[in-house]
């Protein structure tokens, strides 16, 4: 493999790196709190490609399982988080497998 790197292309790379970083930071992110056995917001609307993070603020573990099984978290103890990137448009319903009366949904649009 040819490892020669011209001065020009090297500088281009150096300039490109921070740009990449900026692009990542602009990637959409959203949060769902788990508090008092409730997902808040219970219905979250996001754009495709959004990374959604759930955080458990209860003193009891909870889990997150998508109906249909697209994603499943490990048990989240107090303060633990779980993230999932929603790549496709559509509505995803999810619930806590320990306390199934806890339900929520994420609506993803392009």
């Amino acid at each position, binding site marked *: 493999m040819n490892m020669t790197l011209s001065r020009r292309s090297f500088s281009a790379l150096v300039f490109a790196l921070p740009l990449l970083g900026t692009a990542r930071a602009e990637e959409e992110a959203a949060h769902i709190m788990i508090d*008092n*056995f*409730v997902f808040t917001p219970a219905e979250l609307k996001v754009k495709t490609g959004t990374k959604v993070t759930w955080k458990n603020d*209860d*003193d*009891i*573990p909870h*889990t997150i399982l998508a*109906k249909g099984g697209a994603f499943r978290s*490990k*048990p989240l*103890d*107090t303060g633990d988080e779980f993230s999932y990137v929603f790549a496709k448009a559509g509505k995803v*319903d*999810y*619930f806590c*497998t*320990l*306390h*199934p*009366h806890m*339900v929520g949904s994420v609506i993803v649009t392009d």
Partner: protein
Amino acid sequence: MADHDDGINRRHALECMIWAGTGVLWTVSGGVPKSLNLLGDAQAAEQSAAGLTFLQISDSHVGFDKAANPNALATLQEAIDKVGAMPQRPAFMIHTGDITHLSRAAEFDNADQVIGKAKLDVHYVPGEHDVIDEDGGKAYLDRYGKNAKGAGWYSFDQAGVHFIGLVNVLDLKAGGLGNLGEEQLKWLEDDVRGKSASTPIVVFAHVPLWLVYEKWGWGTDDGARALALLKRFGSVTVLNGHIHQIVQKVEGNMTFHTARSTAFPQPEPGTAPSPGPKVVPADQLRTMLGLSTVTIASGQRPLAIVDSTLA
């Protein structure tokens, strides 16, 4: 049929049984609560002498270390110390689930070590906290499920009483409550088929098999189907945990009772925004933790449950 004697009417009796405190002993005959008294230890012991006595402990949540009880293993130890100090040795113990908080091997190990000090046979059913290992309950089954069917259900007979341990914490459905499932209900139907209606039945599971409070998920979706299979029996006792407080009711020949936790209390239904560990002043915690002693008098209907606290 006389609905009451000693001036205690049925409504009053039922009121007394709900949210009952320490040392309440009650008997049921033909579905009618009879002779309801606040008892001293002596009377309770006398009652125990009449028949089979066993213990129920529940919701030990070993591994829990939050504000509601920074050391759940220590309060479990206190409960087991109480067992050792009992004037009459119980025949065995049932544990109605949530042995551990997070299904971790070390939590199961610690629980086994402490509960083992009671030197009693222990019949377990899992709580939802006992089946959150990677394999969805394998850790529990490997340890406690040797003689069990399916996800851990089984039955056994002792002193003429038929005991049934059910599992209602797996394969829960979104928006639903506790779940027994078709396979287990079929097994239950087969299990009690051919048994004489005079056989006393004790059925135990983690989540209440009857609807205590739907909004908090305190019930079992197909629990009524299990109870329907037991309806023909003259004496059915339903023992549950999960809600960390005593709730009792009587319906026909069925008596329902939930046990206190040995770890932490939860709010009474509807008195807080949600269920979950309830933080109380440290000097009150042990008045809200405890265990239950159940006595079934042989050859008769009456059944007695005495709840005692760790205070």
